[in-house]
């Protein structure tokens, strides 16, 4: 499989689906839904300054990030966790929101291209 994709490890998906096209599509659909839900909930959490909402979004996406190596998105979420601990919703949060949105949208775009 080509390594033009930088935001998600599709080899892990291929290893799991073993050429089962239906299963591959189901898995890609499920990853898309998970990242879209993360994007919406996480951004809502930032806009509403709600730490529980952000924590819930982080918690829910954790297995997907790890299982399919969504490394860039995982790093940005980790940076956001530190930023929130140190500065709360103050300095840097708008920039973090933009970085997070870019990373989430890049994953979604790669999944779309991969199909």
């Amino acid at each position, binding site marked *: 499989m080509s390594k033009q994709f930088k935001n998600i490890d599709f080899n892990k998906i291929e290893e799991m689906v073993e050429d089962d096209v239906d*299963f591959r599509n189901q898995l890609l659909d*499920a990853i898309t*839904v*998970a990242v879209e839900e993360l994007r919406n909930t996480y951004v809502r959490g930032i806009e509403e300054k709600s730490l529980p909402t952000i924590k819930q979004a982080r918690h829910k996406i954790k*297995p*997907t*990030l*790890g*299982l399919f190596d969504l490394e860039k998105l995982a790093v940005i979420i980790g940076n956001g966790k530190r930023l929130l601990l140190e500065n709360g919703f103050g300095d840097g949060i708008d920039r973090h929101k933009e970085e997070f949105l870019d990373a989430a949208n890049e994953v979604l775009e790669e999944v779309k291209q991969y199909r």
Partner: protein
Amino acid sequence: MCINLVIVDDSDVDILIIQDAISDLSASINFNSFSNPEEFLKFIGGFHPEMFRIEKFIIISDINMPRINGFEMLDKIRARPEMALVPVIMFSSSSSQEDALKSIARGANAFLSKPLQIEAYQRLIRTTIEFWTHHLQG
């Protein structure tokens, strides 16, 4: 004997990975998944109590779900005397000791933290189901 495996998890990714993990188990398993506890509670709500003596169930549930969470669902399961002995395994992204203790205190048979590697995740699911299947068939 066929085992009714019930997965309650609001993540489709997790449901698919679990479904794939059990596909090569030799035991006869009837797979049921629910994306929220309300759906599952509605599903079992119509069962006659005798059903849980005739059929064998294993329930694997996430904890962090909207509206009714896994703990509240566990309370409702254990409130039904006929389900007192149904194995319930809490399976969560959480690795907190508090969640583990809360699960056991409320009557879960085990608390497992979701591994972040596919192979480990699927192996954990397979060994867990094999263990409880063996226990129920014992």
